[in-house]
């Protein structure tokens, strides 16, 4: 397989057909916009919709919670416990999708090989197993709080939307291992900060045992990030030499 950056017949640039490109520019300059203003017109319309105050969705009502979660909510801490449950739901969803990302990466490496500077199948498999364990950790933690771990919380939903592009890159048969690793790096960067903030939040709600367990997950995620960053960086430099 050719390297993703090898020369080919890319036709997207204006320089591909200079004569035609000049025609395009001439035509664009000859046209008069049918409405005055600029891109702020779009922004202003967008703002009008934002101001309607709708949201993506909500957390489930306390009636569906039991045990510690109800206790937390009764502690007079306002919305803070709900934020914790929402963010735990987000990490749970992210780890579950992350597991699938690494499955897709394994297929890619299985088919193309990781290269001298890239990951081995075993290394990816180790990360995959960590992701599945982290998913399970969050599932149990939510259950221990009396919350329903099958709920798709608002933050979980939004993190799923965020990951859509990453999944497209990983599952496209035409992308290279290096391109996939770059997409995974985006996921790992967000995941690292996500765990860090979740730990701070748990501590602020005196959930020290939970924070301790999450700290272990963060340590593992930090290792993932170092590994992925290293593969991306070394592969890019190797390809350029």
């Amino acid at each position, binding site marked *: 397989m050719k390297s993703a950056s090898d020369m*080919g*017949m*890319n*036709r*997207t*640039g*204006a320089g*591909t*057909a200079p004569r*035609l*490109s000049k*025609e*395009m*520019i001439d*035509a*664009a*300059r*000859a*046209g*008069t*916009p*049918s*409405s*005055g*203003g*600029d*891109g*702020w*017109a*779009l922004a202003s*319309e*967008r703002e*009008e*919709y934002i101001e309607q105050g709708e949201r993506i969705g909500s957390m489930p009502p306390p009636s569906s919670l039991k045990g510690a979660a109800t206790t937390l909510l009764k502690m007079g801490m306002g919305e803070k416990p709900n934020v914790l449950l929402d963010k735990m739901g987000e990490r749970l969803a992210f780890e579950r999708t992350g597991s699938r990302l690494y499955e897709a990466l394994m297929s890619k490496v299985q088919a193309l090989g990781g290269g001298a500077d890239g990951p081995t199948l075993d290394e990816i498999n180790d990360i995959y197993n960590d992701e599945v364990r982290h998913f399970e950790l969050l599932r149990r933690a939510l259950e221990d709080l009396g919350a329903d771990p099958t709920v798709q919380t608002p933050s979980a939903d939004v993190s799923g939307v965020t990951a859509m592009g990453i999944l*497209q890159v990983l599952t*496209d*048969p*035409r992308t290279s291992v290096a391109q996939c690793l770059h997409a995974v790096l985006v996921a790992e960067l967000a995941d690292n900060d996500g765990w860090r903030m979740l730990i701070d939040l748990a501590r602020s709600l005196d959930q020290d045992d939970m924070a301790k367990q999450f700290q272990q997950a963060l340590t593992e995620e930090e290792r993932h990030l170092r590994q992925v960053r290293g593969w991306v960086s070394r592969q890019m430099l190797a390809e350029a030499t």
Partner: protein
Amino acid sequence: MALNLMEQRGTPLDRQLFDWRDMVRVPISKLDDDAFTRVRVILMNGIESEALRFQHACARMNKDLQLPLARVRRIEQHQQTLVNWLLSADHSPLETTIAYEQVAIEVTASVAQHEPDPYLAQVYRFGMLEDFDHLYRYSALLDRLEGKDANNILQSYTDIRPGRPTIEHHRAPEDDLREPYDRATAQPISKLHALTIMAGEHQTHDYYMHVGPLFADPVARQLYAEIASIEEQHVTQYESIIDPHETWLEKWLLHEAAEVYNYYSCMQQEKNSRIKPIWERFVDYELGQLHYVMDLYRSMERRDPAEILPAELPDPIDYDSHREFVREVLRDEVDLRARGTRFIHKVEEPDDALSVLYRNQMNSNGSPSQIVAAGYQWSPGTELAERAAAGAR
């Protein structure tokens, strides 16, 4: 050498076979393939989509034809899948939209120039100028929403500038119907043209209706709502130019002929060596389907298909940039409006015309197409490139 529809019998139906992997192939490259390969893929998806649509409608009205229709339709379904799945997943829905408008402009421009009936040619030019403006609006959206250059898709073949402004396209239904060709006297190419453009516009409408809600941005959702409504008008216009007195079987026969004609046009001009054999195979499949329907026509209507079909296929769709023709039409006909089935200059449109009242109502709370393209002028590398360079000077 032109293809002889009567002599070439193509592949028999029982040998028109598929499997799932056959249908799901390596797609075209957004970056490396010629834009006209993508244009052909999109148009042929539209042609197959129309085949399914027509055949389902026909089945609902004709008990005796239900089984033959089901047989052919199953093949059309798989042909459409194979063709449509050639689009690669790195096209965002909005980038694919840019490609759809390029199809509408370049294919309609080719048809308008080859159409022998002057009234029908006028109808095509009228519709084309509207799709030309849609391209400009969507290009502004692509730039301002995704930060991308529409010319990465268009490859400098199709101009990006205002046409007849989209805000003016909204017409009362009374002004969207046109005069049909006469089935007895119209030339076969006129019938093939009408089916081709109707199919293309119908799939464009369906595509916008499908992807509009995929956008988070409210202005994008508005723009798709607005332009989908105009595409619905275009379908209304183009289906009305087809003689409604053709029998169901006559219409089926013409649909199959239009499919042969279009695959044959693709086959003759395709440069991608992976895609060309697909067009060749489907020319043979469509010839097989055409002869199957010819036999039904002979046995059920007791008429000779040669009364309707041309012996040899007419000149193919010209898959090339029609820049000069489009500019000429823009210069001469941008101010045309529709009044009943006729076209008039905008100054002849009275303030109380049905379309004016309708348009005023639709635009009474703002115009998405005006908002999205406010002050927009395309330049290579997006308007930000122009702005950033001006800032640096």
